[in-house]
């Protein structure tokens, strides 16, 4: 409850600072915000578009969050997401009925994400390598690998600016406007993580390991296993973010500059911070991000330069994420002993 009010307070603060920045540069802040809101939520089309943009963020946010729950700072979602996208796209080539290719795409991209998380777990557990370092490196490996595949192996023979298209029958069916049934994947995964963390023994172990590895170990919980599990589950989730971005959203391909995959993985970190690493919070956080992204285009129409939009976005994200990031940093330091007395 306190967290919720804090989040709302910070959100308002962020919006106010954003307004000041816009005013200083001579733009009408309230008009701009109004168009942002109307552009993102003003009508059904805008609303579905906002939702569609949020779906992948839910998944990468969950990746980061489950890591934090296990006491990890897992920033590997970006690489896993890219890899998941390319594996899902490649599944178009499988000699299977189209709907089965969709299933295969999800299974195989999930496995790929998990495989990409495996070295992180192994290095962490057996060599003590910080997951921050190994995920950053693997992110780059994934980036250039995917870049190469997209340009050299999967490019559309006619339209060089993107890969070939996912065949129609293999795509997630459209619900309305831009929104597809990829929605079900994001909701299901969020629901799964909620259930896993609070209603499953392994999830309990993950939380115990993250909150107090010493007590967890003393209670016979393997902190290593709990961390590995969080990394591997996170890998699946992140890879599916890439997969649904390709299978469930226009242009149903990967653009040659990887722009339609963008920084979904990294944005997931901010989404998780805003959502306080709770699946419900992450749904809200991702929706908030989707709103900003969709509304920004409408703001642009008013002549507010695109950079201004990024500034506003950045400011809000910073304000939203800062308290949580601070808490996280403080958290990783040993706490002084507290004794209550009278």
């Amino acid at each position, binding site marked *: 409850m306190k967290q919720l009010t804090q989040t709302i307070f910070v959100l308002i603060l962020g919006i106010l600072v954003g307004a000041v920045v816009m005013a200083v540069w001579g733009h009408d802040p309230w008009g701009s915000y109004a168009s942002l809101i109307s552009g993102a939520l003003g009508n059904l089309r805008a609303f579905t578009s906002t939702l569609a943009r949020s779906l992948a963020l839910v998944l990468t946010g969950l990746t980061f969050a489950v890591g934090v729950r296990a006491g990890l700072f897992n920033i590997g979602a970006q690489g896993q997401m890219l890899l998941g996208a390319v594996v899902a796209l490649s599944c178009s080539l499988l000699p299977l009925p189209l709907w089965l290719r969709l299933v295969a795409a999800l299974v195989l991209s999930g496995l790929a994400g998990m495989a990409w998380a495996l070295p992180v777990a192994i290095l962490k557990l057996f060599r003590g390598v910080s997951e921050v370092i190994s995920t950053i490196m693997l992110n780059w490996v994934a980036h250039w690998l995917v870049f190469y595949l997209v340009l050299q192996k999967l490019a559309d023979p006619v339209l060089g600016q993107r890969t070939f298209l996912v065949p129609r029958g293999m795509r997630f069916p459209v619900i309305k406007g831009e929104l597809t049934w990829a929605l079900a994947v994001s909701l299901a995964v969020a629901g799964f993580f909620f259930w896993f963390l*609070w209603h499953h*023994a392994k999830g309990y172990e993950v939380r*115990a390991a993250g*909150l107090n590895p010493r007590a967890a170990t003393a*209670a016979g919980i393997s902190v290593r296993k709990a961390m590995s599990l969080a990394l591997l589950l996170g890998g699946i989730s992140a890879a599916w973010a890439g997969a649904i971005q390709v299978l469930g959203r226009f242009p149903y391909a990967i653009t040659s500059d990887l722009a339609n995959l963008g920084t979904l993985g990294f944005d997931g970190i901010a989404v998780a911070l805003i959502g306080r690493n709770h699946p419900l919070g992450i749904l809200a956080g991702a929706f908030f991000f989707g709103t900003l992204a969709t509304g920004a285009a409408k703001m642009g129409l008013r002549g507010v330069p695109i950079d201004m939009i990024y500034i506003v976005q950045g400011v809000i994200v910073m304000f939203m994420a800062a308290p949580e990031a601070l808490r996280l940093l403080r958290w990783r330091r040993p706490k002084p002993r507290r004794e*209550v007395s*009278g």
Partner: protein
Amino acid sequence: MASEHLIQAQGISKIYPDGTVALSGVNFAVRPGEVHGLLGENGAGKTTLTKILSGLLSPTTGEINWRGKRVRLATPREALRLGIGMVHQHFALVGPFTGLENVALGLEGGGALFPVQATAIRSQLEAIMEQSGLVAPLDVPVEELPVGVQQRVEILKMLYREVDLLILDEPTAVLTPQEAEELFGVLRNLAAQGKSVVFITHKLEEIMTATDRVTVLRQGKVVAVRETGETSVEELAQLMVGRELPGLRERAGNPPGRVILRVQDLVVPGREGQPAVKGVSFTVQEGEIFGIAGVQGNGQSELVEALVGLRPWEGEVELAGESLRGLGPAEIANLGLAHIPEDRQNTGLILDFTLAENSILGRLRAFQSRLGRLRWRKVHRFAQELIANFSIQAPSPIVPARYLSGGNQQRLVVGRELSKSPKLLIANQPTRGLDIAATHYIRDLLLELRDQGMGILLVSADLDEIFELSDRVAVMYRGEFTAIVPREELDRGKVGLLMGGVR
């Protein structure tokens, strides 16, 4: 109105915004040049009262007279200007700063930034150190100093500010017995110089050895003020707890049981590679409490950690006939070992977990379905049982363990560990930091378990506890047992010497 009192607080009440009544109608007075003990159980209002006296909290009602004149202490700064200084349980020191810099911090006119002033402060501090007998290094970053020495820096800080009333909140909680003795000597010196000292404790012996007068608080009220010379430990204990504590149960004359734990030539590596435990052998039988006495840091922690599977070791250890070689904490627990760790807040509990979540720590298997789903309803029922059976005071099973008092946290740990129906219970410092009632409860429970035939390995730095409970006592010194003494031959003087390494 001249007054014989340095400070006099009258009719002090404090009601916190959440409605908690911390103090009601408290009268408290300190004479010049006395060491005044403030005694009470956890939650009796001791800290609240001292915070009011030092300007950190303002009372809801009541007045404070300083040297016979009514004052309002709105901030710690104002209190300090009058001459009231407080040393909190959690020190207000800047870690990377030296002792000198910490003293200078907050002084008017820039403090130690200027070499001239630094020199002046230093020479004055050295004079204070000489006078009071309170010595601390001035040029070492305080974070590199042991806690006991950090505390001295805190006190020096106050003395430099020429306080007349020094308030110490549970100063001995972080000290070894020897350090505590030294501190008491310093307090005496200060009193002899005409300064007044108030110190908070819930340890009766400390009141008896170190104070001139004592005020006893219970549930936010003053129940008694006594000249220390005219009271006794028994009277104070009763005043503090509010009822006469029954003695511990008579120990049943258990016949010697089967050996439940056999330890042979146990060697446990310590932090810097040298062994912390150097070849220790002993057995624990069913129906006996085997006590390990010793000054802290002589390998007791490492010994226990090895036995419960948290530390590698060499030698031979058998629990109920099964070798523990190569087993982890979970497997050892499954063989029938329960463990009350010395550090309940960091090892025994996950403070951010709820009471219910903590109640199944290490016992997940009993509360999950075949597919691993947690059976929350069963967990909550179990938590309620623990709350009832072990008199844990908690508003509900879903309160985070962080918000329980130390005594209730320990009841939770003990209840959980006993619910494993162990063959051997290892209790490491089971009553450290607990108030009298909780201590009594735990000790009595250990005796009850012993009488029922459980084997108990008790590790304690508290000699009273060792003497009250143990059937046999091993004294540990520098990683070795200097002796194993049966109950009939226990002798305080002898054990004290053994603890110091004298055979």
